[in-house]
């Protein structure tokens, strides 16, 4: 597959007109048509319905479009970066959904600072809904969100990690001597429950709604004064004086995804940020 073939196809997706696409790409229409035919040959079927008055994407064309668009963006990222660096101070605005720690992306931020000296870096924390709105409005460039199955179509998202569950308790608790905590052992405990904790709580068959916290921090403070045991996602930092042990039977507590708005041009810093975090293995890094 060749870069120019894919560029021509994307121009056709925008214009849905062979003449206008050829003009936009600065080639003759026969050259554009030939390139599209070769791409169709490789992809194993027509990408467009060619009718006299109407050019439309086929299902294959629609399926391939976003993937090819991502490839062209990646292919052009470096030349784009050079142009952007001359034009403006690099700016990167990253959002973290409530409860997600910046420790997840801290390493990538340090690398961006090294790579793009003078980078203006804004971190924000907000509830998921507000962050999604901010992404769509172009006020946030990328965000770490929880995959709740309700992310809008317009967001590209890449799975970063599935986080298991960890029981957090005070020093001196019997769990201290265990490598991990089994579900039946938790049934005998007073468990601090958090809002929106999802599946893990249901799997516990939790009936104790007596102790509820609205944040991981609140839950840990309740544990610290001896009110009970809290269940936290694996990577949430444990407060001093508390200990944590994994609860493997509880399954995944949440899935964290990296999200950016599709179809938008990436700044060099955003491109670097997304690539660094997509390339990394979060699950392995957390286990280490």
């Amino acid at each position, binding site marked *: *597959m*060749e*870069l120019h073939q*894919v560029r021509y196809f994307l121009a056709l997706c925008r214009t849905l007109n062979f003449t206008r696409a050829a003009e936009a790409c600065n080639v003759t229409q026969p050259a554009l048509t030939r390139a599209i035919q*070769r791409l169709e*040959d*490789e*992809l*194993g079927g027509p990408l467009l319905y060619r009718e006299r008055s109407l050019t439309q994407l086929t299902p294959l064309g629609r*399926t*391939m479009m*976003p*993937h*090819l668009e*991502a*490839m*062209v*963006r*990646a*292919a*052009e*990222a*470096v*030349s784009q*970066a050079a142009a952007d660096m001359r034009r403006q101070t690099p700016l990167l605005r990253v959002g973290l959904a409530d409860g997600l720690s910046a420790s997840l992306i801290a*390493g*990538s931020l340090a*690398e*961006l600072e090294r*790579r793009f000296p003078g980078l203006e870096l804004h971190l924000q924390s907000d509830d998921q809904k507000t962050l999604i709105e901010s992404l769509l409005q172009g006020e946030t460039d990328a965000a770490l969100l929880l995959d709740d199955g309700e992310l809008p179509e317009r967001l590209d998202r*890449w*799975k970063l990690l599935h986080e298991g569950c960890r029981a957090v308790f005070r020093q001196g608790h019997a769990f201290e001597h265990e490598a991990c905590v089994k579900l039946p052992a938790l049934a005998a405990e007073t468990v601090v429950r958090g809002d929106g904790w999802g599946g893990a709580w249901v799997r516990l068959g939790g009936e104790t709604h007596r102790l509820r916290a609205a944040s991981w921090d609140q839950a840990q403070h309740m544990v610290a004064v001896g009110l009970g045991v809290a269940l936290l996602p694996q990577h949430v930092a444990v407060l001093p004086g508390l200990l944590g042990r994994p609860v493997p039977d509880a399954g995944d507590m949440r899935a964290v995804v990296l999200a950016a708005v599709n179809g938008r041009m990436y700044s*060099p810093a955003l*491109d*670097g940020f*997304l*690539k*660094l975090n*997509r*390339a*990394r*293995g*979060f*699950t*392995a*890094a957390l286990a280490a």
Partner: protein
Amino acid sequence: MTLRDKLDAQRERSAANPVWRATYEATVAELRRMGFLNQALRAGARFPDFLLPSAADRLVGLSDLLVRGPLVVTFIRGQWCPYCALTLAALEESLPDIQAADGQLVAITPETGGRALAVRQRHGLHYEVLVDVDSGVGLNCGVVFHVPEPYRSSIARAGIDLADRQGNGGGLLPVPAVYVIDRSGLIVRDFMDVDFTRRPDPADIVEALRALG
């Protein structure tokens, strides 16, 4: 045992399965029919600039590498490919010779999610593995292709989910091309075969570096 012997032995083992054999032959024939190699970057062209994340969580640019000397770039298909594994290990063995010829070596994989690091650790590699996220460098080099049927289904049946591994649902793989690039960024030698079971002998790569003086 040379790399070629090992690749031949691996191919023979795989080809004992008639379904694999038929799929493999059809795939290579299809890539030949499409005239794949006519569209790829070859010796004499300039290698496209890039900025890619490494297994060590750094962003590495072509120019960062070239200031240190000529460069060997090897495209690999992924952690799951036994021919890539044999090649990576053979290149590791040749790394002292590559370095003695003032050269450096990087592998480029389309696989995300920590697989570059896993490959590096598994084979104890002392050279960098870069992640070509969304196959942008592969596209610039003209070495990526849409995996044709029935190979696509055969990979999927083996439990290899390319979309999940690459974080891109395009269903693409690179031809495992190897480029030798001089300090000015010019490709001085290319090795490519649409047959993914055939890879260059590391000695020939070292020879190409030595010829640069």
